């Protein structure tokens, strides 16, 4: 599974479809469409990228939606909480710092998933090991984008890309790095193995290079998803597959019982009789018992009547002496 977490989104469906299918052709499986936002944020930050794209996707390709916030003023409120909410529609939030102050803020405190520097620019400060490592330990990954450096016409862009990339690789000691394309057109995309080679030349080991396209990128996606769906980043409800069929049948019966309680009680009585068919001996026994009972009752009645009669007599007898 190779990840490209940065393909610039454009509303032109034809171009986008071409870019996605070219990335799929190169061997990428997960592609994040990137929407860059800078300056003052609009009131409604919901994602302009549609959840289902208006064209068929190549097989085995998963599309994610990502927002990149350009941070220039550290005092400004960037409403990062809104971006980290599932309702915003974004799957990943990246921060693009522009100066040292915002870079440090992004590394230390901003609640984002990725720190993505524009590597074609010259930065007047050093990338410090401690600052970058704080970000990596916090679970934030550093992104290197090769796309703009490859196709840009002026050679300084490529030179800056190499300079910045090697500086970041040296400062992080190769830890927590994600490589993605930031491509506007398919011409800027390169195959995963080519990128691994490029990273090797830049000082990232071959294994680290492969991890930058697979494991590290995946950890970004999974952590971002977890942040959005779970309860306080601790507990998450996951889909555990369908229930066994046996339980389904039970459910149906339960439902029936609730609806037609009266009918079913009658039925169950009938069933209980049906369940125990009486044998001949039992029938005889019951008949005998019934007969005996009747007989006993009849005798009891007789006794009662005689006793009553006696009582009457006694009463009469008792009364007489008094008088």
């Amino acid at each position, binding site marked *: 599974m190779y990840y490209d977490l940065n393909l610039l989104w454009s509303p032109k469906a034809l171009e986008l479809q071409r870019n996605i299918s070219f990335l799929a*052709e190169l061997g990428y499986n997960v592609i994040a469409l990137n929407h860059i936002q800078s300056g003052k944020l609009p009131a409604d930050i919901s994602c302009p990228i549609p959840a289902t794209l208006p064209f068929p996707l190549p097989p085995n390709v998963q599309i994610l939606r990502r927002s990149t916030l350009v941070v220039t003023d550290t005092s400004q409120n960037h409403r990062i909480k809104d971006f980290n909410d599932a309702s915003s529609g974004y799957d990943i939030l990246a921060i693009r710092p522009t100066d040292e102050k915002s870079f440090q803020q992004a590394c230390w405190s901003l609640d984002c998933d990725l720190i993505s520097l524009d590597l074609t620019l010259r930065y007047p400060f050093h990338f410090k090991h401690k600052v970058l490592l704080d970000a990596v330990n916090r679970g934030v990954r550093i992104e290197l984008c090769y796309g703009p450096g490859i196709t840009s016409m002026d050679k300084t862009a490529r030179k800056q890309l190499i300079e910045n990339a090697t500086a970041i690789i040296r400062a992080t000691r190769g830890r927590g790095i994600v490589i993605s394309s930031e491509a506007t057109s398919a011409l800027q*995309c390169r195959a995963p193995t080519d*990128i691994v*080679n490029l990273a090797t*030349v830049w000082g990232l080991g071959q294994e680290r290079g492969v991890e930058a396209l697979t494991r590290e990128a995946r950890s970004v996606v999974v952590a971002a998803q977890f942040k959005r769906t779970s309860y306080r980043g601790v507990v998450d409800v996951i889909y555990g597959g369908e229930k066994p069929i046996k339980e389904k049948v039970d459910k149906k019966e339960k439902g029936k019982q609730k609806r037609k309680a009266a009918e079913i009680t009658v039925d169950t009585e009938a069933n209980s009789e049906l369940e125990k068919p009486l044998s001949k001996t039992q029938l005889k026994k019951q008949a005998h018992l019934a007969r005996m009972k009747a007989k006993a009752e009849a005798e009891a009645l007789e006794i009662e009547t005689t006793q009553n009669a006696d009582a009457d007599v006694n009463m009469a007898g008792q009364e007489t002496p008094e008088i």
Partner: protein
Amino acid sequence: MVRIKHRYLLINILYPSKAPNFSTKDDIPDVIQFRAPTPDNFETGVLLRMIKEGVNELYGDYGLGMIAGSLKIIYLSAPTSTAIIRVSRDHYRLVWTALTMATRLPKPVDLPCVIQVVRTSGTIRKAEEEAIRRAKASIVRSKQSAQTNGSVGIDILRDFNLVGRYHQPSPAPNIRDGPTNHDSSESEVQID
């Protein structure tokens, strides 16, 4: 005797933007468009020049000097946009990065392209085997996508003699059963 060890890079040339030969027809499947044939004027000299210019741009005279002795185009096939390049093993990454950074085929061809190194190997034989395997796989995929996209794709394949060259039509060709059909094409794909 100590022999000089080499790396053999198997490369594919891909055309992400509109390929030259497809200007008239729009609804060709992407799989076929990306792997379009390169024009015939793309020869070993052109590729060699492109690599040298690229290495010179990235690594200067040092890089050029390091690779110049061993660099050789072993195989180049314009119709399949495939090539095998030989470089010394110590410096193959210089050539590789130059290929990665290339965005355009040079003058007589002059097309925007993406070059993908699909395999590096220590022997020519392994590179050859991989080239054959990939050619077959791409034909199968082209046919599958052609079938899903209707008859257009098949016409395209015929235009480029892909059907005729790599696949001898059987009485009832079932394109879905690709792998069985393509055993027959093994002898047809040849790398000198």
